[in-house]
């Protein structure tokens, strides 16, 4: 498939600038990665509303909580591994428990970070955030959806987590469809198997659907950009329509999108299912695309999984 590619981070930065123009209550924090996370774009336009906290993520989350308690809509950014793991207790105690209006928007998630290696990659961030009560968790599939999710989070009163990648992502979302918290979207209709992806893996699901079509298999493709709350109705519809489910994520299969969908299926509608994702391992240095191949984040893996769940149905 031929895709257009665009940067999620750039769209995040653009959304922040647009928010800054229309809202005086928006403030942005970063932990010394503002040129990478693109919060620097906001800092340039609205220097008074931007606060660099240095390499001190725990303190940054506390400061974010205090500002939110004073009525600000606070965006706090860093790399996903640092914005969640280094300061998880601060997020839990000072943001999630008091239900404060902080939007943790993290970039460089997954293994497509590339050369920096496992210390800077993360397959655990969605797991860490979705287990926190009061949190909303979103994984935009591409750059346009990143823009929409940023705007939607600004309108939502409560703590949110958004996960972005470093690489330019294939544009896959419907330009006419807005992002709504708790809602996924069907990108391709199909009758035989449902491929439910998030982030960059949505594009791999679309490629897989095309490959399956060549084998006379009709695959439905769902972009599940709202991880929490999960779009249960959309999953239920997929079960009814195809009765065979594959999930795909650039995240540890332990407790990410696949685990969320599996929980729904086991409790409501048990049908054959398989998770494609990082198989409970750390990454390593390499080019993003190379790493995706090595760690099984490919359309071929999604095709294999689809054929397997169809056999088991």
């Amino acid at each position, binding site marked *: 498939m031929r895709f257009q590619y665009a940067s999620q981070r750039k769209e995040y930065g653009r959304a922040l600038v647009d928010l800054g123009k229309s809202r005086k209550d928006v*403030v942005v924090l970063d932990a010394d990665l503002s040129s990478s996370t693109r919060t620097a774009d906001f800092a340039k336009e609205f220097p*008074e*509303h931007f*606060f660099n*906290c*240095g390499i*001190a993520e*725990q*303190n940054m*989350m*506390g*400061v*974010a*909580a*205090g*500002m*939110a*308690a*004073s*009525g*600000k809509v606070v965006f706090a950014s860093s790399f996903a591994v640092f914005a969640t793991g280094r300061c998880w*207790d*601060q997020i*839990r*105690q*000072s943001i999630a*428990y*008091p*239900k404060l209006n902080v939007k943790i928007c993290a970039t460089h998630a997954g293994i497509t970070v590339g050369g920096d290696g496992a210390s800077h990659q993360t397959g655990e961030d969605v797991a860490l955030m979705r287990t926190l009560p009061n949190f909303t968790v979103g994984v935009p599939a591409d750059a346009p959806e990143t823009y929409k999710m940023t705007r939607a989070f600004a309108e939502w009163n409560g703590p949110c987590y958004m996960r972005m990648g470093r690489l330019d992502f294939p544009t896959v979302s419907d330009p006419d469809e807005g992002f709504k918290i708790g809602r996924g979207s069907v990108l391709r209709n199909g009758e035989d198997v449902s491929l439910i992806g998030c982030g960059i893996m949505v594009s791999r699901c679309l490629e897989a659907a095309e490959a399956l079509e060549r084998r006379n298999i009709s695959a439905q493709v769902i972009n599940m950009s709202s991880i929490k709350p999960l779009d249960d109705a959309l999953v239920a519809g997929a079960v009814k329509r195809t009765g065979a489910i594959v999930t795909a994520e650039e995240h540890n299969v332990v407790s990410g999108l696949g685990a969320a969908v599996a929980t729904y299926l086991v409790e409501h509608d048990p049908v054959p299912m398989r998770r494609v994702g990082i198989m409970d391992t750390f990454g390593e240095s390499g080019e993003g695309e190379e790493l995706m191949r090595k760690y099984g984040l490919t359309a071929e893996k999604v095709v294999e999984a689809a054929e397997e769940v169809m056999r088991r149905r």
Partner: protein
Amino acid sequence: MVAYPDDVIAELERRANLIRRHVIRMTRAAGSGHPGGSLSSTDILSALFFKVMHHRPTDPTWEDRDRFVLSKGHAAPAYYAALAESGYFPVEELLTLRKLGSRLQGHPSRNKLPGIEMSTGSLGQGLSTALGMALAARLDRKAHRIYCLCGDGEQQSGQIWEAAMLGAHYELDNVTAFLDRNKLQIDGPTEKIMSLEPLTDKWRAFGWNVIEIDGHNMREILEACDKAKEVRNRPTMVLAHTVKGKGVSFMENALSFHGKAPNDEETKKALRELGEDI
């Protein structure tokens, strides 16, 4: 500098004594809680809630109120008693501390009880949130101040020093923090567990205005608050030397009463020492 008349000081001391009696009764009723660190904080809390801070207990979300964050969240009994005596909620409710369904959680919860600005309890975190409030106040061109009460044990947390850097870097002179230096933590004296001294030098080196006081001398507490208001471009840390369990002879400097409630006999004795007719 304001000179405080003796009767003002005496009235604050009377109210601090009242808070101490509440702390004893509350922890007795709960059967658990932290009387030691509550009693070392009581005089500071009384000065803040009954004299220093501008706040409206009947309008707890008043925009221009001074904010208070209890970074040492385990001193909740004394904090709740000061809130109740200020009029945020009925004094009778104090005895529901730690009970199922109570608004008085074991550690302060922002969404449960009016007057609580921030949920705390996991140590080392409150000061950062206070600084966030201070940045927001400055951004909004508001004149209110942010008060924060830290424990000495939590000075061992890295986050405290991250906050120390940020407070100085952003020149947050609208912050007055207190350090309740009672010198004891759960496992023993702070200097044996993980030495903190020289604390004054550390806070000065981090760029803060440091004022050392006797944390049980009401006049010194009030004067420190006044001095802090006059300092420009630096936050203030009031290093308050205190006694854990202050006011009850057998609780003073007693490690055992860090996280243990008094029994019936101890309760009677404590209340008698605090001047209550039983």
